[in-house]
Every structure is written in C-alpha cells, then in structure tokens.
C-alpha cells in the first residue's frame, strides 16, 4: 500500500485512523482491492474538492466516520429485525434533508468520500462508466436530468465524461443544491448545469435525452409514483441510470428493497426497459444470518 499511496489519499487515511480507529484499515483495503487507478482517481477528487484546505479534509473525514459507524450499527440491528426504523418522508425531510448542519457537516461529505471508500459504491462508479456513459454517447444525448442529486457526484461524472452535454439537477434539499453547485464550480462544469430546487419536470421540449437517479428510490414512500413522474419528463428511447440501495438501513431510508427484481418490476411498471443490471454488495455474506448493503444498478431505456 505504501508504494502506491499519494499525499492527499494518505492524509485522508491518517485523519481516519486518528479519529476512528475502527476504520483505520479502510484506505489500505481499497488500495489492495482496486490498485493504482483507484488511488489516482481518489487523489484527483480530493485535490479538486479540497485544494490545500486540510481542515476541510479533516471535517469531511469526521462526517464520513460518523456516518459509516452509524451505518454499521444500523446494519447490525437490521440483521436482527430485517426492517427499517419507521420514518415518514416528512420526518426524513425535517431530520435529514432540511437540516443544513447535518447535511453539510456529515451527510454530504460522507457520501462524497463513500464513492471511493465504500467498495460497492466504487464498483458502481466503474460500472456506470462502463455501461451507462457509452449509452449517452451512442444516442448523442444533449441533455440529461439528475433527480436526487445529493452531492452532485454523478452529475459531475457525466458532465466530465460527455463533452457538451447539459444537465439539470433536481433536489428538495437546499444543502444538496449548495453542495452540487460548489462541486461543479470546482470542477469547472457549472456552465453546463442548471440547479432546480423542486421535483423533476419536463424542462426541455420533448423531454430530457437521458436521465440519472442514483440511490433515491429507497428515500421515498412511493417509488412507483416518482418513477412515473420521471418517465413523463424524458423522451421515448432516452437511456437512464437508476440505482437503489438494498438492505441498507441508513437513518433516512424509508422504502426497504431486498432484491433486484422488486426494483426491476417497478422500473418496467413505470415504462422503462431494463438494458443492463448489476448488484454490488458491500461485502460477501457467508450465511443467511447476515445481511449486506447492496447497490442495485440498472441502465434502462424509456419505452
């Protein structure tokens, strides 16, 4: 690991080890697993996002550590109950999405780092580049919407990977709007992006050419209603990336998905054909007494 690791990745690793001993092997495990390409990509992400602000790195690591440890404890409980703690969408808005301190201090920084530090999130990222970005190029997509932008990470990835494409990002959280604006500014991608603090709508004539919704479905009380609204906002034939978390009892996860087929059936029911799918577990479970959070990923087409 020491041969491969770069200065900013090393700084994240050191901050994590100092503050959260339980998580001190995380960076080394990812380096062993994904090698120099992972290090290079993560180094660049940290460089662009944080610049030379080491205090911001440490604050972000603090948020990531708290979020990850909470997720581990919730997973431990979930393994026994196989249910999420009862929370309504309104409660999630009040406790999480509308809580600027929590969103900007813990939730969004944690999610940003999780794209690299959680193995299933990093595998999802690689899969998106292999299976979804080529679809955008194949249809020469000029516009896309990202619904439930969170940190803005996937909007950034698409804007960077597809030159000339324009994006519209929808979220009901002021913190997500703010964070995504910052992220895209730092990557020099803001000029091709419009932030919308509202539900998704057919913003462009004929509907968007493509669409993205990453780990939003499990935050909703009725994913099929959302998927129907999304379908109405995109043109026929538009490729889309939809992902959902399975068996992942985060505090704001409301809708429990336990298998890929449930998600796929909802996608088909809303008017999407599944083109490709993959399931990335956070770790391999060895008995039916264990559970693992999983990233269920789908490339779809609006039909």
């Amino acid at each position, binding site marked *: 690991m020491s041969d491969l690791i770069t200065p900013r990745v090393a700084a994240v690793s050191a901050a994590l080890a100092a503050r959260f001993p339980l998580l001190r*092997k*995380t960076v080394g495990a990812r380096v062993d697993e994904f090698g120099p390409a992972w290090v290079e990509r993560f180094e660049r992400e940290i460089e662009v996002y944080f610049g030379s602000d080491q205090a911001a790195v440490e604050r972000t690591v603090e948020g990531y550590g708290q979020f990850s440890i909470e997720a581990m404890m919730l997973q431990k409980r979930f393994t026994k109950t196989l249910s999420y703690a009862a929370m309504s969408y309104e409660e999630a808005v009040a406790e999480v999405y509308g809580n600027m301190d929590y969103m900007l201090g813990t939730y969004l920084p944690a999610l940003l780092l999780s794209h690299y530090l959680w193995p299933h999130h990093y595998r999802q990222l690689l899969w998106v580049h292999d299976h979804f970005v080529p679809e955008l190029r194949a249809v020469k997509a000029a516009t896309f919407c990202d619904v439930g932008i969170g940190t803005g990470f996937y909007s950034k990835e698409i804007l960077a990977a597809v030159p000339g494409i324009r994006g519209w990002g929808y979220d009901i959280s002021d913190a997500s709007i703010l964070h995504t604006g910052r992220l895209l500014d730092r990557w020099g991608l803001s000029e091709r992006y419009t932030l919308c603090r509202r539900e998704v709508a057919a913003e462009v004539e004929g509907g968007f050419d493509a669409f993205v919704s990453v780990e939003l479905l499990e935050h909703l009380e009725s994913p099929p209603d959302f998927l129907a609204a999304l379908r109405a906002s995109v043109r026929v034939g538009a490729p889309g990336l939809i992902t959902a978390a399975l068996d992942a009892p985060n505090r704001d996860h409301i809708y429990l998905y336990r298998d890929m087929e449930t998600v796929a059936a909802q996608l088909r029911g809303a008017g999407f054909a599944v083109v490709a799918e993959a399931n990335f577990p956070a770790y391999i479970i060895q008995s039916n007494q264990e559970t693992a959070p999983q990233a269920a990923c789908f490339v779809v087409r609006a039909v």
Partner: protein
Amino acid sequence: MDTITIHNTIIEVMAAILDVSRDQIGDDASMDTIKAWDSLKHMKLVMTLEQEFGIEFDDQEVVDLLSLRLIELAVRAKVPA
C-alpha cells in the same frame, strides 16, 4: 461462566471469524497485530460473540473493542460468573 471458559470461547470465535489459527491470537492480539481484523470482520466478530454469550454490546463498546483484552473485559462484565 468461569474466566478460562470465556477466554477460550473468545479465542475460538476470533480464530473462526478472523481466519487465523488459535496460536496466532496472543494475549496482546488486536486490530494492529492481526492483519485480517478490519471493520467488516470486527462487526462479524461482535455479532458472533453476542450470539455465543447471549449478550449485547452497546454502540460505543462495539467501536472500542479492538483488542482481545478489551473484549474479554467487556464479556466478563456481561456474563454471569
């Protein structure tokens, strides 16, 4: 349960979860001395110990129990002698 039985049971569980031989688990065993002991294995270790002894660790204990010594102390405090 006597302390020797507790110690031996913990060693058995650690060896199985961390996939190391019992000989490799010395009195100073910790996350630092056993390479395979990472956060994921730690959670499996904690859950298996809870099941084995019929006890429950609180969240702070789960985060702190990163050595054999600390695990033994916590288990002994929860298991009737």
